[in-house]
């Protein structure tokens, strides 16, 4: 661990969590939303934060931003422990959590002015942020008259007021039209390239694959995988195998310790392996002659679905009676 001149911890990680846990208690009992999550987001680039609905993404973000209290575990932003040091680092963090939330009867500009003035940001920055997200001309309209896309843009404008070094975006393209989605993705990509670290929580896997340089996948509040997008996709090399008798081939491949499932489109089998020769060797040994062996270019969606499906088979959300 390095320290700066003032003895403060210096790290290349912008976000770190260790053993992070969040429990919600209600009359129905205790529900664990996040269980022992270790998250590490390096500085720079766009980092995808993936997980099925209810996997704990938003809860994790809310804990990082001090909106929810962690039951256990440690969190750091820019190497500083949060929530204790949140006031010291919040000026470097812009965030949109869940849906955009502003005073409905105030204009977009008034909403931004109130936020800006609360931390001493000059009013001139408001106009710049409005222009960046393409709301110029509509910023004097009331927030309640905005479309969902415009509300999202205003929320992003609010994050840009601080000129953040870390941008946390929770489903930022929700409700945007295709042109708006492209604009926001371009903005995110540009910000990532300019040195701002972006944590992008999204359900849209293609979006993450297009925009992100690295990603973390969680399920049931636990870390499932993390790394660069290339690393993640590399972990899941698969081949499409076409054979006359799929059932017999499945039995042979399983006996040879090769993971295989029927292809969802009915076109043969999908075999997970780094050694395609093992497939031909096993099938030929059993007298089964394959008619196709095609390497499949892995995509994040397939990898994500395989990971989360396996996670759901292996565990279920912890739920204790009070």
């Amino acid at each position, binding site marked *: 661990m390095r320290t700066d001149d003032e003895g403060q911890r210096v790290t290349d990680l912008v976000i770190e969590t260790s053993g992070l846990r969040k429990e919600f208690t209600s009359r129905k009992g205790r529900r664990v939303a996040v269980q022992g999550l270790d998250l590490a987001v390096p500085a720079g680039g766009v980092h995808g934060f993936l997980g099925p609905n209810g996997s704990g993404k938003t809860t994790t973000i809310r804990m990082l*931003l001090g*909106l*929810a209290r962690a039951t256990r575990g440690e969190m750091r932003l820019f190497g500083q422990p949060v929530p204790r040091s949140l006031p010291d680092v*919040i000026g470097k*963090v812009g965030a949109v959590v869940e849906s955009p939330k502003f005073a409905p009867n105030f204009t977009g500009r008034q909403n931004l002015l109130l*936020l800006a*003035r*609360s931390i001493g940001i000059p009013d001139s920055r408001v106009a710049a942020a409005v222009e960046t997200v393409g709301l110029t001309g509509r910023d004097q309209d009331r927030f309640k008259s905005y479309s969902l896309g415009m509300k999202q843009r205003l929320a992003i404008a*609010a994050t840009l007021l601080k000129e953040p070094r870390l941008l946390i975006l929770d489903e930022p393209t929700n409700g945007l039209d295709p042109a708006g989605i492209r604009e926001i993705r371009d903005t995110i990509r540009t910000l990532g390239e300019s040195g701002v670290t972006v944590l992008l929580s999204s359900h849209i896997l293609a979006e993450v694959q297009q925009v992100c340089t690295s990603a973390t996948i969680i399920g049931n509040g636990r870390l499932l995988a993390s790394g660069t997008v290339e690393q993640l996709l590399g972990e899941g090399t698969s081949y499409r195998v076409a054979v006359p008798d799929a059932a017999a081939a499945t039995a042979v491949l399983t006996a040879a310790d090769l993971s295989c499932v029927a292809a969802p489109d009915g076109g043969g089998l999908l075999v997970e392996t780094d050694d395609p020769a093992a497939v031909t060797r096993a099938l030929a040994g059993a007298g089964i002659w394959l008619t196709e062996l095609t390497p499949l270019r892995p995509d994040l969606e397939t990898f994500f679905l395989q990971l989360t499906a396996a996670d759901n088979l292996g565990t279920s959300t912890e739920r204790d009676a009070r």
Partner: protein
Amino acid sequence: MTRLVRVELLRLRLRRAVLLLLVLAVVIPAVIFAARVWDTRTVDDADVLADNYYAVDDCLQHPRRYGLERDAPDLQVVCEEMVVRDYSLRQPLSLASERGGSGLGVVAVLVAILFLLGTTFVGHDWNSGSMSNQLLFEPRRGRIWAAKATAVGLVSFVVAAVVSLAYWLGLYAVMGLRDLAVADGALLDSLAYGVRGAAFATAAALGGLALTMLFRSTVATIGVLFVVSVAGGLFIGVLGVGERWQPPKNVSAIVKNGTEYWVTVPQSCYQRRQPQPVEEGSSCDDTRDLTLLQGSLYYGLPLLGAGAASVLSFRRRDV
């Protein structure tokens, strides 16, 4: 902190509901003022004859009922004078009597309106969800709470004080125009009454804010307060709680700088053969003093409790 207070003052100014309540806080006392000025207007003969036409007519028709002879000289004039004296209930304007009447009404109006102002101001932040956005810019929740309370307290006190003082100065001016005598110190007493009323109304606004920050909903706050007032009324009615503990009496103690309340004395106090002077404070004394301090504690302690619960809850609960 000053910056946050300024932001909250701007937020207050931008809220239309708040502006409407502030207008009501001026207009309703102005209407009460106008009504009092009208109801205490100087009595003239035409006024008396118009208002008491039937009484004068009855006197002329049946003078014996009024102790007059039918053939009494100037019967018309005598009847009119009698009606002026006996039938006109219109009292001349007096600061002392207004402190026990319309002054309390003005305080009650300010309390209700400023309570709503406190609750609707922060209730809007919770209902719209913008509270979480504010915390993304200033995560020190204690400061956010304090800034909102300071803004609400400042605006409430200024508005309530200006309205109250204007009310009493207005009545004083009207008395001057009517050549009515003002007792020594009456104006000062009335202004002090107005300041205490403004302070009480400010406390109500802060109570509304504290409860809404606790319940996180304007509707919930008003609902809980309604239930508490109904249940409290039933409690007082069923258990026969003494006047000392009744809310209006304690309001009087605060704004009037002390008041008196009745207590039940033993039956033996009424069964003495020869009436004796009752010693003040003895068991047979049926009136007791309720001081400003006691009234302040009656409302101040629950307000402090609500404030503490509100701050703790806001600092600890998830948003």
